[in-house]
């Protein structure tokens, strides 16, 4: 309880109302809320240090650059990268995956006839950039099934036999979520990376959901790329992190051309900046980038706090009970060996859109629809599901109130 109060008091937005009721924000997997420390820095930069970074010798530019680079250093520390040079700041996970996909293809590392391995539970951001590469370069997707749905054990586990078979068929790239934004099950990354590497296949991990709830050490994992979005982990929108192994970032060609990513420019020939700036063309969102520092510091403190871990367990137990209290609820990957507090579900006889609309009128903010992962939601959820996703600032009392609200909604709609 004390933990709940302490953490909640740092998020001003949690005090607001929706439909004249206390708001319960359960759409954290889409965007999380920002604590005071992040809001304060955002405000301070705009008021005191606003100037373009990396370019000028004046004081303001120096201060803004310093803050932005502190954001990069915080990201390096947060994922335990060997060097800050291995941290490319992008607009978000989507931008990062597009960058890797395009640069791998342009650099000749993926080409005609080559396979790209994904699981069927990926977010559109980890499907479409690769499909574009397939169209442009004649590669193809190798999609691995997951164990989810009514007629399965519903563990959310990746079919490892199919994974190994695809690796052996000689795919050129593996790109998989740490945690799917639909299933919430934690994928066995270490095993998956090791098996791909044994065959010399590079691995990108879409950590947009995973890093929010699990500690990540890229050196220990050994993955070639790991990416996540700031706005899902206490930071502002418009900034994302792409960790890339030095050897990859050095051999990949640049992505976008523009200012900041160049060495010397003449009309005959341009040389490019060293990593990571080689991949950061144009003026970066330096305000959001700087805010990675307080945001990730906040997340680290949370991860290290035993009270936070106990709280997460209590939240998940309460959510299991809440969903079990309504007849006809099907939870995606309910039997997951390890999950994050993210639950996608359907309710028999109730359209998710109707339920989300009514829940909003009771103050509960939930996601509904295909949630940017149409293939898996089509297969296991009939094209539309509801999703409740929690953060450490969620409370057990909120989850209990959610159970009541859900029961009421079902009564109204059935």
């Amino acid at each position: 309880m004390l933990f709940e109060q302490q953490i909640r008091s740092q998020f001003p937005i949690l005090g607001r109302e929706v439909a004249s009721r206390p708001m319960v924000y359960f759409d954290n997997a889409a965007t999380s809320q920002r604590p005071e420390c992040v809001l304060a820095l955002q405000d301070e930069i705009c008021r005191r240090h606003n100037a373009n970074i990396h370019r000028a010798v004046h004081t303001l530019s120096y201060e803004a650059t310093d803050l932005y680079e502190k954001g990069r250093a915080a990201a390096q520390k947060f994922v335990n990268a060997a060097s800050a040079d291995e941290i490319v700041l992008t607009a978000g996970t989507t931008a990062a995956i597009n960058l890797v996909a395009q640069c791998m293809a342009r650099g000749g590392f993926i080409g005609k006839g080559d396979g790209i391995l994904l699981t069927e539970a990926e977010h559109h951001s980890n499907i479409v950039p690769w499909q574009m590469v397939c169209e442009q370069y004649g590669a193809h997707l190798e999609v691995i099934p997951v164990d989810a749905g009514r007629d399965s054990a519903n563990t959310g586990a990746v079919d490892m036999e199919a994974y190994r078979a695809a690796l052996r068929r000689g795919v050129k790239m593996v790109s998989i979520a740490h945690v799917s934004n639909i299933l919430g099950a934690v994928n066995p990354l270490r095993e998956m990376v090791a098996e791909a590497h044994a065959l010399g296949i590079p691995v990108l991990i879409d950590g947009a959901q995973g890093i929010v709830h699990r500690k990540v050490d890229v050196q220990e994992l050994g993955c070639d790329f790991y990416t996540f979005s700031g706005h899902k982990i206490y930071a502002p929108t418009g900034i994302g992190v792409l960790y890339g192994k030095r050897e990859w970032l050095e051999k990949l060609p640049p992505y976008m051309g523009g200012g900041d990513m160049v060495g010397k420019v003449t009309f005959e020939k341009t040389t490019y900046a060293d990593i990571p700036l080689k991949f950061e063309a144009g003026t970066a969102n330096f305000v959001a980038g700087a805010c990675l520092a307080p945001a990730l510091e906040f997340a680290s403190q949370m991860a290290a706090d035993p009270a936070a871990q106990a709280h997460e367990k209590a939240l998940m137990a309460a959510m299991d009970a809440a969903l079990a209290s309504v007849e006809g609820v099907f939870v995606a990957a309910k039997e997951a060996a390890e999950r994050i507090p993210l639950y996608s579900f359907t309710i028999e006889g109730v359209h998710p859109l109707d339920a989300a609309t009514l829940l909003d009128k009771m103050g509960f903010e939930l996601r509904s629809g295909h949630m940017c992962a149409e293939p898996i939601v089509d297969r296991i959820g009939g094209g539309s599901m509801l999703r409740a996703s929690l953060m450490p600032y969620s409370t057990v009392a909120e989850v209990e109130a959610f159970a009541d609200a859900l029961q009421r909604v079902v009564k109204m709609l059935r």
Partner: protein
Amino acid sequence: MKSIDDIQREIVEEFAVYDEWLDKYEYLIDLGRELPLAAEGDKTDANLIEGCQSRVWLTCTRDEDGRLHFAADSDAIITKGLISLLIRVFEGQTPADILAADLHFIDDIGLKENLSPTRAGGLAAMIKRIRSYAESFAEG
């Protein structure tokens, strides 16, 4: 026959009884259950209005007097309620009156959020489809 504006005023009065959001939606759900349903055979791709999260089918016919008649269906009940309100407003009206109508009741009863084009219910898309039916029958 009541005018489009009279019917809109009636609806606004009916909704004025409810202070609570949930009560408004409860009423909308009841209306959804009374929607004049499109025949199963009419639930074709041509009659489908692809909203973002719910599917809506809408059919339109013209009688001998040149008035239009609607039937619809959806997989979401609140969406059905919304379309039943639209149908009530436009049922039996002429294409010219439909095209000239100023639709204000949605805003007046506080359901404007449903009009946003990204809103899953796709009310804006339904209105567009009704207008396009009216246009084609006005010409034909």
